[in-house]
């Protein structure tokens, strides 16, 4: 077998193997059971609680939990926005990088608060080290927000009838101290030893073989890159993200970064199984996600390995489609990464997605349009939860019983919320793209929004140009953060429109599942009978998969047909 393929298997396999015990650890942590890290972290956490005046044992209902989550996120956004606006005159700025424009600061602050990390700047020239540290802080807490939100839903699924769903702040702090910090520390060390810089000094100078003097940007990158992946953030320290030789120096660090980003999304599903003591349910969910993932990965790897047909026609031999890829990773691994980073909402890239084959671009888009095969840190499960609710409803009717999930009846209110969340994703993607396409079709003068005519933001005409715009909004709505690139996106039009999409696409899909779970938790528990549809069976998994696939297909088929599919058949 091709050694490039065999390289993918341990990356994927080891992620799963590591995720099972890690999921168990997560479950035990949030169940309040003893873990081996207690002696180290208990004192730290208690100190944090004491300073901030939090009573970690004060249980909240779902509305209080939600308010706490939204409130603290708003605070972070405001803080980050002002740091970015003024970073030029703040300390830790050895390279004297300028402050951000308000629209870029708006976009960047939102983008990091919502765990997306859509970057319309390059880290080397766009951020001071203080700015980088601020963003690094957000990479921790935004991931922790996702985990803490998912934990509330876990809790709501576990108890029979309750409105006490845990303490948001306690879960937030624990997510940071017990899960994100220790693993990031290890990963950062590995990366630092492999050559990723970790320094507060400014640019270095080297003299090349030709005798030119070249400046090389550096900074506290190793720590940044570790949490960027572990928290499924994806915001690169450098503009080229994980394709940059200092951010991702070799094949091994590439594997480490993949493991790191896959770890928590995988582990959260297993954690659900341990937390509820319903391991079979977790395996079914994980199975559905894995089938979806493989269906996206395989065509992508195949089409990237097949090489570019345009180059093929010229009679040039190629080792896969290498345009926009790093030789040290190769075509299959880059293809694998491109799907891994889009199914989970990392959005870090180790090659140019703009240069991948049309079918791969299609799969990357689909991965983000579905947005619940594994998904982002904590929120991946929340997105999947919505589809479970819809699948339970339809299949409940199909077996002739009022639908119920884990002993709770699914009624009009829950269906209403779930349907709204399911619509929101296509609404944001399609209406955003429609707006951009409308401007580009008429080639309007954009005034303040964009200097020049609208088509000026496209690097490519036709279908590929359409894909670029579709990708940008899809990436925003999926809180993914990867870019198709090739799009002139650092301008008020893109900064503001994607900023709005980011905001809505982050918080509403968290609020929805939390509301449903909170409502269900307070309902009467109905014991299982022979007539109850079990949700931990293969057939229910098939049903859930069908619901996910059909909603995605029905919402996005025309858009995909005009973008990557038109290119593919062309």
């Amino acid at each position, binding site marked *: 077998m091709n050694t490039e393929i065999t390289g993918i298997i341990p990356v994927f396999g080891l992620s799963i193997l590591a995720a099972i015990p890690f999921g168990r650890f997560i479950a035990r942590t949030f169940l309040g059971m003893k873990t081996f890290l207690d002696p180290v972290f208990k004192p730290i956490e208690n100190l944090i609680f004491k300073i901030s005046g939090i009573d970690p044992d004060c249980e909240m209902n779902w509305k209080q939990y939600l308010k706490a989550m939204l409130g603290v996120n708003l605070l972070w956004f405001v803080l980050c926005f002002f740091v970015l606006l003024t970073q030029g005159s703040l300390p830790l700025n050895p390279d004297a990088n300028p402050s951000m424009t308000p629209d870029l600061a708006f976009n960047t602050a939102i983008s990091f608060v919502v765990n997306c990390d859509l970057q319309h700047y390059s880290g080397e020239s766009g951020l001071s080290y203080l700015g980088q540290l601020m963003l690094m802080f957000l990479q921790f807490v935004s991931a922790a927000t996702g985990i803490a939100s998912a934990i509330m839903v876990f809790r709501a699924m576990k108890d029979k009838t309750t409105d006490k769903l845990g303490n948001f702040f306690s879960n937030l702090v624990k997510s940071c101290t017990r899960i994100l910090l220790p693993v990031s520390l290890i990963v950062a060390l590995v990366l630092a030893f492999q050559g990723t810089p970790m320094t507060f000094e400014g640019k270095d100078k080297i003299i090349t073989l030709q005798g030119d003097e070249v400046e090389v940007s550096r900074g506290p990158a190793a720590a940044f890159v570790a949490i960027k992946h572990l928290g499924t953030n994806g915001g690169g320290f450098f503009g080229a993200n994980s394709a940059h030789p200092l951010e991702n120096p070799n094949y091994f660090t590439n594997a480490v970064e993949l493991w790191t980003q896959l770890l928590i999304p995988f582990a959260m599903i297993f954690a659900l199984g341990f937390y509820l003591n319903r391991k079979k349910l977790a395996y079914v969910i994980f199975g559905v996600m894995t089938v979806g993932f493989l269906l996206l990965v395989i065509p992508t790897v195949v089409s990237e390995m097949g090489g570019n047909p345009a180059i093929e026609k010229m009679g040039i031999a190629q080792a896969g489609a290498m345009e926009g890829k790093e030789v040290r990773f190769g075509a299959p691994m880059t293809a694998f990464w491109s799907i891994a980073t889009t199914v989970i909402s990392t959005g870090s890239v180790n090659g140019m997605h703009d240069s991948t084959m049309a079918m791969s671009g299609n799969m990357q888009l689909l991965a983000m349009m579905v947005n619940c095969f594994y998904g982002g840190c904590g929120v991946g499960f929340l997105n999947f939860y919505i589809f479970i609710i819809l699948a339970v*409803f339809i299949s409940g009717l199909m077996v002739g019983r009022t639908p119920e999930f884990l002993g709770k009846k699914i009624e009009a209110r829950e269906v209403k919320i779930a349907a709204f969340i399911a619509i929101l994703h296509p609404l944001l993607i399609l209406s955003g793209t*429609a707006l951009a396409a409308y401007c580009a079709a008429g080639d309007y003068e954009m005034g303040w929004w964009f200097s020049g005519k609208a088509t000026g933001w496209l690097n490519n005409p036709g279908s590929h140009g359409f894909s670029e715009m579709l990708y940008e909004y899809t990436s925003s709505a999926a809180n993914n953060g990867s870019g198709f690139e090739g799009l002139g996106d650092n301008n008020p039009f893109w900064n503001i429109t994607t900023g709005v999409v980011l905001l809505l696409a982050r918080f509403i899909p968290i609020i929805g599942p939390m509301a449903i779970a909170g409502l269900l938790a307070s309902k009467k528990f109905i*014991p299982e009978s022979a007539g109850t549809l079990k949700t931990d069976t293969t057939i229910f998994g098939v049903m859930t998969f069908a619901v996910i696939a059909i909603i995605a297909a029905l919402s996005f088929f*025309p858009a995909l*047909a005009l973008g990557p599919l038109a290119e593919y058949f062309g």
Partner: protein
Amino acid sequence: MKSQSLFQQDQVFSALKQSFVKLNPKLMIKNPVMFCVEIGTLIMLVVCVSVLMGNTTEGSFAYNFIIFLILFATLLFGNFAEAIAEARGKAQADSLRKTREETSARQILENGTLREVKSSELKKGDKFVCENGDTIPMDGEIIEGIATIDESAITGESAPVIREAGGDKSSVTGGTKVLSDKIVVQVTSEPGESFLDKMIALVEGASRQKTPNEIALTILLAAFTLIFIIVCVTLKPFADYANAPITIAAFISLFVCLIPTTIGGLLSAIGIAGMDRALRANVITKSGKAVETAGDIDVLLLDKTGTITIGNRKATNFYPAPGVNFHDFVEAAVLSSLADETPEGKSIIELSNQMHSDIGLDISLLTSHISQTIKFTAETRTSGVILKDGTDIRKGAQDAARRIAENAGNAFPPETSDKVTEISSNGGTPLVVIKNGKVQGVIELQDIIKTGMKERFDRLRKMGVKTVMVTGDNPLTAKFIAEKAGVDDFIAEAKPEDKMNYIKAEQQQGKLVAMMGDGTNDAPALAQADVGVAMNSGTQAAKEAGNMVDLDNDPTKLIEIVEIGKQLLMTRGTLTTFSIANDVAKYFAIVPALFITAIPALQGLNIMRLHSPESAILSAVIFNAIIIPLLIPLALRGVAYKPIGASAILQRNLLIYGLGGIIVPFIGIKLIDLAVGTFF
């Protein structure tokens, strides 16, 4: 009940008429999916007019007009589905209503005199008299007298029934006929508000309210409609960007094809058909919700007598005491029962008749020996006869018999005593026969379990319904019968409040409970149960308390009701799945057709190889329209329910309606295209 074909000519005509009446937007807006189709149809009408006026950008008039016609047909098909379901329900209701045509009634005025009035003039609380040959004018409760009544007009059952004042069988229904005796009846409902009137209003749609599941499903369908509004609206700038102008006809067609018109058009028909099926099973439901709830029932309470066992106990065996001749014992047993009017007593004679040839008893000869009969009293707790020769023969429970024997100085044989214990533990009732103070033997009485009950309970168990037998028997007997009949649990020595407590306890655990009852003392439990089915023969109080009334007075009817409820939900679920799954093929038909002229590469998506963009769009819209009438029979009959476990049902329905829903339209659209393609 009477079976009839799905479509009867007169019903079809009235439904066709109703299909047009229902086009009224005020009525249509209740169904968001079909309302969107109506708007689309109107837009197409405007487009057709503009093409006639000289607009050249929207394609030929013929093409636009055909699209308009198909959309219009889609609307009519949806309306027809609802109308035909209503017409069928109405026909069913009418046949019941015939029983309450105007009759004359003899009202008792306050001063006690009689007055001839029309039945429609009777008000709640009025009293009237009925004698043999009279038709009872209104629903009511007997307050005086006893009568045999022919209820065949309502139940179809020809055997007359006895109704009497007081007790649990005091209720009479309008339209039934008094066969003998005279009764005074008090009217229990205002004109037009009897159960039947309410049911008729429900079936005719006048007062139908959406059930909770129907509301939730409507929300989901509205959400799907919204997704497609978003898809279609955003497609306009996408197409502009791609330089692929799309005609209004194509837009509307895409939209109408994608929104779930199939289930949208059939949804209310399914609901009406569910109640209609209940009515056909001779069950009057007070709301659609009750039928739906029936499908969710977890626990079913059944009375033993009449439900699980046939009426009363029967003699099954004679066991003579040691030293007593079998023939003599049977003779004594028969003698002791000749004057016994109870069903148990009669069954002893029946049993001896069955053994007639072996034993050779002459009943009339025996009867002639009797000089005096001794009735059962609470003190002696025995009954029997004294013969002309002075022989005293008694039968009774063991303790009473033992006292008589011991008073006469005779021992109670231990063998007989053992037999008595054995019979009791087998769920039977032992009766000891004594002749002149000497124990003759034991008669075994047994409950006869109805045939087929075990299968029915198995079926319920597979549906996830737990059955509970309610009986006045002692726990030992109750346990035996429960095991033999295959019920899951029992309440022995049940008092009315025991039922109530059991229901409450089950509901506390989140279970839904159904029960049947007829007596006034059942009323609180019937009201407490999630599904309470009152027998039509029961008291007014019981009928008021329950949410269904069974006209046949058949206690096993609950099983049918549960299945009807499940069928109702399943039909909705499967047709929704089918409707949504259809969209895949429609996309592959329409999307390439929209863009093929601007982006020829998209020919690759035209996997059905449809003839031309116009024929592709027409074929998809035609398929979308005709699938509605094709599925009307399924909507009316309901998807068959099989108790094979929830996962197995899901697998089956997902395969048939999910996978089938994906494949069928590919074939259908291609076939239609082969025909349409010759014109466009």
